[in-house]
């Protein structure tokens, strides 16, 4: 994927997370830890649902999906799933 696409993934994810937290996307940074921006497990479930819908990907049901640390981890994970989907 090109650089532009990565930027799109990043901005979409920030938008989804900001929407879930009812906050301004500009206040979020990719280095933010989910814990620090008060993303609880139920928020993460909602975020994963929005991500799956937005990018038309399936986030694995395995509990590791719920062990993400930072927003960058979320972006990397989504990018990996998009790449896997495109390669398939």
């Amino acid at each position, binding site marked *: 994927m090109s650089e532009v696409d990565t930027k799109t993934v990043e901005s979409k994810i920030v938008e989804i997370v900001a929407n879930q937290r009812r906050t301004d996307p500009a206040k979020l940074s990719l280095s933010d830890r989910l814990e620090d921006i008060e993303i609880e497990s*139920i928020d993460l*479930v909602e975020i*994963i649902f929005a991500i799956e819908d937005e990018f038309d990907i399936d986030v694995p*049901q395995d*509990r590791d999906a719920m062990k993400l640390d930072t927003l960058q981890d979320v972006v990397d994970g989504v990018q990996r799933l998009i790449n896997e989907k495109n390669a398939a």
Partner: protein
Amino acid sequence: MHRVAITGLGCISALGHDANSHWRSAVEGISGIGPITAIPPEKLKIHVAAEVKGFDAEKHFEPVKLAVIDPYSQYALVAAREAIADSGLTFDHGLHDDTAVIIGTGIGGAKTINEDSERIFGQGKIRTPPMSIPKLMPSAAASQVTMEYGLNGPAFGVTSACSSANHAIGEAYWMIKSGRARAAVTGGSEACLVFGSMLGWQALRVLSVDTCRPFCIDRKGMVLGEGAGVLVLERLEDAQARGARIYAEIAGMGMTSDAGSLTDPSAEGAARAIRQALEEAEIAPGDLHYINAHGTGTGQNDVAETKAIHLALGEAAGHVAVSSTKSMHGHGLGAAGALEAVITARAIADQIAPPTANFTMADPECDLDYVPNAARSMTIDTALSNSFAFGGLNAVLAFRRLH
């Protein structure tokens, strides 16, 4: 006030089509968890459940009747028939007017809802079958049981998600205790392994991808189950007068709400329900022998429940045998408490604690005696059965051996 005896048991679950098979499988640690057959696997991301296997509805119901009874009510009726036959009760001499029927369910007629949704939104049709509403209502099972046996006492459905059956049984217990009813047919039923409902559970991300390992470090979540459990309860003096077999007494009931999170359980809310049940049953923490845990196998429940047991029992927590039989019959949602009440009553009658199956290694935050993998012959004079629901609704039953 009257003491309340359990004189009949009925059950259908992934472990078998009768209470004895359900109990024997649980004691032997045989899990009913396996591949989902009711829904094509390519439509799902989760592929395991504890399905009722080989259920031939036509063997139990006339075709005309079958058309108006959702599987959730079918299961309840099958379990009720067994429990009533087991109890030997005939409801004569006016007893039919004094018998309550209280059946819990989390959803009600999930299959009917699913089929109607498919017709309306999938096929674009603008008509549903005419009996949809009376099939899917969450009180349908209670109505069906009253009609089959001509029971004219108080009857209704009870719903509190995963605590539904315990709330139902507790309510029936209190009715008999207080004199409002002389007997009760009570329990819980669920038939929720349908496509729409499975998608909902998948989205919540609490389902295990392989199996249910309550309290273990490598647990991956819960496994959905289904079925029904039904108990016949009656005044102890009536049961003794007619020479009925008494499995155990129900001696206490605790119910509280967390008033906190929709999905995160509170140890304190659960602990208060445990304390209430013990107090009503006049069981000191040190005299409690067995707990059939809620034990869903999710990350959150098992830690919160362990904490709750510590809070409620104090130092005695380390001495009580705690097992989660959901590791075998799965999480039957609105049926769960009833599937577990059948097991708890038999645990007292047979003096055996069933195991927590699939046990690997305990989570360091789960530090109780979980009876791992092998049933234990032991003195069980007193027992609890825990149910803690989404939405913070807690219901705990206390059982006693009759001396």
